[in-house]
């Protein structure tokens, strides 16, 4: 197992490098003089020159890439112009807020999705199956940002159950219950689509597995049906569910952009949108590379989990 983890980690290095190259190339597409584009037409010449030097824009493309990469590896993501602070500081601060939101949503959609899929499969064509199928259908069709707005309207404005937005109450908040209260709506809104996708997949994976011979064996042994479904069948179905969880984690992570805007959650998605609107290129660059790298590492964890779950995979 240990060697498998190391192997996966090593195989991630080219992917991580590829990510930096792609981001770098995209940023190199900025038309015209990037420094002026970034700073706007009112920029002073000193500022333009300073930015050119900071970005290393006087050097050739390849050299610029390696300078940028080298800087990042030493933890220097540059300085944000709009915020006037180191990019990395801003990113880590914002990313932790996103991680809370996306993490809770991911746990929610995994549990709810798998549960719904299992119930749906076990009660195929029954009323529970029909109800779940219909709910899932609606769920995966609602844009999360619209859903978020409607939730605010219903639960925060009309019913006054939950706070409208933000991560903590402005006055007197800051503790865990406060955070949780602020988390309920955004995490639900963020997890709805992923829950639907996972539920669908879990249902078909369960149906596939339930037709297998070893399920008949379990029943022939006299294993109670509950255990047949929640044990034998689900265990086998997880093998095809887990990779989809990995993919959905990516959707939840990137979907948090919308939710952070709607609920004014101080996460990295909102930071990126603000940075794009203020043309704070270094902040965008750093943020994108950082989040993508985290996602790659998360996928390694998923792979390792898969390896632990399925003894047939040579580890």
């Amino acid at each position, binding site marked *: 197992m240990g060697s498998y983890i190391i192997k996966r980690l090593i195989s991630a290095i*080219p*992917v991580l490098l*590829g*990510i930096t*190259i*792609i981001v770098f190339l*995209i*940023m190199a597409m900025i*038309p015209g003089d990037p420094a002026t584009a970034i700073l706007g037409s009112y920029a002073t010449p000193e500022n333009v020159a300073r930015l050119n030097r900071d970005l290393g824009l006087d050097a050739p493309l390849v050299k610029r890439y390696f300078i940028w990469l080298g800087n990042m590896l030493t933890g220097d993501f540059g300085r944000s112009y709009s915020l006037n602070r180191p990019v990395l500081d801003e990113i880590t601060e914002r990313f932790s807020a996103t991680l809370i939101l996306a993490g809770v949503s991911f746990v929610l959609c995994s549990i709810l999705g798998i549960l719904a899929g299992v119930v749906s*499969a076990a009660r*195929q064509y029954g009323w529970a199956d029909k109800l779940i199928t219909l709910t899932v*259908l609606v769920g*995966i*069709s*609602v*844009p999360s940002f*619209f859903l978020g*707005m*409607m939730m605010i*309207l219903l639960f925060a404005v009309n019913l006054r159950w939950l706070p409208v937005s933000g991560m903590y109450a402005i006055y007197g908040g800051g503790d865990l219950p406060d955070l949780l209260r602020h988390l309920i709506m955004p995490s639900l809104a963020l997890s709805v689509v992923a829950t639907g996708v996972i539920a669908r997949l879990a249902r078909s994976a369960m149906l596939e597995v*339930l*037709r297998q*011979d*070893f399920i*008949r*064996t*379990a*029943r*022939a*042994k*006299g*294993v*109670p*049906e509950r255990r*047949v479904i929640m044990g034998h069948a689900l*265990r*086998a179905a997880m*093998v095809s569910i887990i990779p989809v969880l990995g993919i959905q984690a*990516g*959707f939840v*992570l*990137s979907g948090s*952009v*919308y939710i952070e805007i*709607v609920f004014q959650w101080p996460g990295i998605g909102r930071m*990126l*949108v603000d*940075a*794009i*609107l203020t*043309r704070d290129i270094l902040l*965008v660059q750093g943020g*994108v590379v950082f*989040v*993508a790298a985290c*996602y*790659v590492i998360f*996928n390694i964890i998923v792979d390792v989990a898969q390896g632990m*779950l399925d003894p*047939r995979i040579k580890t």
Partner: protein
Amino acid sequence: MTGFLKLLFRNRLAAMGAVILGAILLLVILTPILPLQNPDVTATADRFQRPLSPGHLLGTDHLGRDLLARLLYGTRLSLIVGVAAALIAGIIGSAIGITAGYFGGRLDNIVMRGVDMLMAFPYILLALAIVAALGPGLMNALIAVAAVNIPFFARNIRGITVGLAGREFIDAAKLSGMGHTRIILTELLPNVLPVIIIAMSTTVGWMILETAGLSFLGLGSQPPQADLGSMLGEARSSLITSPYVSLVPGVMIFLIVMSINLLGDGVRDALDPRLRSGALSRPLATTLVSGARRPVPPARDGLLQIADLRTQFHVGSRIYKAVDGVSLSVRPGECLGIIGESGSGKSVTALSLMGLVASPPGIITGGSVWFDGRDMIGAPYEDLRRIRGDRVAYIFQDPLSTLHPLYRIGDQLAEAIQAHHKIGKAEANERALQLLRDVRIPNPESRVRNYPHEMSGGMRQRVGIAMALVNDPAVIIADEPTTALDVTVQAQILMLLEDLRRERGLAIVFITHDFGVVGQLCDRVAVMYAGRIVEEGPTAEVLARPSHPYTKRLIACVPELGQGRREMAAIAGLPPVVSDLPPGCAFAPRCDKASDSCRKGDIALSGSGGRAVRCLFPEEALT
């Protein structure tokens, strides 16, 4: 094609999707000629008019613009942008995929590496990076959304192209001197095109949603031009005071995406042949029993008695009579063989006993199975479960697929015990270990920790037998337990079963297609054909003087008892399909002695003293 459309529209949800999407498309096409107000003309005096106010059917927004007009123009814009993004992504992605798949080698390698890296990004993040570089704007949002979807198409289409590139017609085209471009355009593309179109139509919903999302963030369409996303984004500031301004574009996005999803699901289902055959339904915990079934009292004595059992498969409008009135019985310590070709109903008979026939499509329509004085057919699930694996245990054919692939075999054995006895894990493990010893598995201490795929076929079948023995059952039903094994292992397993039967006084029902095996193990044998018993009797007598022409031929197929591979193919002709049996003898089409009278009415199973045959002109007359 018409069949496909029929299937699509039989699906009510898909039809609903088509209707909604059609209506939206129609509205959008008609938008320019409808008597609408200018969507961009502001009238501050008319801000936030409620829906149904005079002149503004859906009300007005924060600048007093007519919401209906804005909705229709916005929908138009969103649809155009989404479709354009799908087209661009589809065309570029497919071009990359086809090129990489067709040429293969280094090029393929490099391109696919790049695709993998692009796919390593969380989706929207990449689009954000592109918009960041190009600057906000609807055109740039379109480019970004198309770009992030290119890898998806490239990967899918490449996979299909690789499959096609190795086929003969491509080789033939190459040999005939066609250039690469011509081969791609005239030979490959027509084959790949349907896949591209399906992929585009299933992703277009996503792309509409994504461009709307970017506009919602303020990175897409810029004022005064508005697609649905930016309408929603602008409405956010007045969400609390005038929610309908948000509701109007939001519901529209929802309707578009949902109708596309519905349609897409419908297309997928209509294309998937498994759905039609009903093969995608999962089997219930016990076989369904028809309400019309009447219990039949046992005709003979015995531990396990099957009385006029009838099991059918209902697939669509077809009815397969897999088991059609079978009566049998086993006494304690006796071994009964049921022999027949595949499709004869022997396995279905075995599975029906404890309600293990997959249902749907299986259904027991008649007869009884008496065990311990109780009719097991139609017994409540919990009663059946208590007997399964405890009093009546099964051994199945291929233990690689019948053992759980992800559980250690020790755990699978222990579980079988714990399903019926309240004992601790340690005790169950100890007992599992002892059973592995009983079935003569070497090194049982280390074997308990094995997964099924780590064992040989013979070892796995020993585990299968051990699992059947765990609770000291009264009856073991063995469904072709040696078929997947080679001859020496088969002999060992048969010997083991024989020993166990003698030591423990087990009754065994042994299902096989092999008379050699029957000869070694079984006291009595029943020959099945097309769901019915055609001959029955003590093994020695049946072997020595087969009475039914079919039995005679089955025996003739055995080269020498207990040795060599035996093939059923030696009997000319195929076993009949049990959905439309001809009247009279089911064997008639393959029988040398068949005459017109054989094809008339039902032929009864006749005989006495446990010896019976179902034939008008038996090879040996039974007294």
